[in-house]
């Protein structure tokens, strides 16, 4: 893939190149994650689950995908 066809994002602390025009919903699904079981933080703001579909990931975005794990 050439540079023109991808955008750079910071995903869970790592630089990634993804296709432009991808929605958060599509990004989550492309990672084989269930959107119902995760929370998305986009540029330090929590993104409501019902906005996943309409929100596009842009160049330079910081995306955090979090979920619950075992803890005390």
């Amino acid at each position, binding site marked *: 893939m050439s540079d023109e066809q991808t955008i750079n994002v910071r995903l869970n602390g790592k630089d990634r190149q993804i296709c432009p025009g991808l929605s958060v919903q599509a990004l989550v699904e492309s990672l084989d994650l269930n959107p119902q079981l995760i929370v998305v933080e986009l540029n330090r703001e929590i993104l409501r689950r019902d906005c996943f579909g309409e929100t596009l990931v842009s160049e330079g975005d910081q995306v955090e*995908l*979090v979920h619950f794990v075992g803890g005390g």
Partner: protein
Amino acid sequence: MTWTDPKSMTENMAIDDSLVMGGRQFGSRLFVGTGKYADNDTMVEAIRASGTAMVTVAVRRVDLDRTKEEGILFHLDPDEFFMLPNTAGCYTAEDAIRYARLARAAGFHEWLKLEVIGDETTLLPDTQATLEAAKVLVDEGFKIMAYTNDDLITALRLEDVGCVAVMPLASPIGSGLGVVNPYFIREIKRRCEVPIIVDAGVGTASDACVTMEQGVDGVLMNTAIAAADDPVGMAHAMRLAIQSGRLAYLAGRMEAREIAVPSSPTRGMLD
């Protein structure tokens, strides 16, 4: 107090002695963590054996290089266990608030175990930052169970800002040292009106029992069960210890004295 048949007392307790906290009723006074288990099947079995009414979970990044099954919701059903997200690992009020909001966005409820650590070696809480975060989160509608030191003044202030429970430590997280200062725990219980849940430091069943004998409302533990050779067996032991300590507290112990007093009659002995 009149003598009550222990069996009926236990039965009555199951009905009458449940804990009400933050407007919610809990059928068990034992709360357990879900971390550090060797495998998920053992975790689920141990949690069931503990009889707990609430389990804690942590908020973390999804590890995109690993299987999605590391998520706790693949193993525990939120309809079966009331899940209490924590802010473990946070060292500032700001971080704890960020994690709290993420936890609430996961969509269960507004309950949170607030924990702000102040020191990496002892994992002792930063009580000032905890208070600061508690104020903000209570204003945002969170029901805060606040992990804190065994310090009365902080406990009172956490209650003042509106926490639904104050959770002083028995001893440092994961230490298994038991209650290092029972007097402070008792004093916190005497002076606060909100439920007091002792969180962290219990090592084995006797520690849990001693903690409940101080009159507190419940105990939260993780490592003591997860790191036992047989976590399921230890979970069962803890369940009994919590009940036993609670019953002993309610029954009222005899006065301790450093002198022997015979239990059998001194009169009527043969020549």
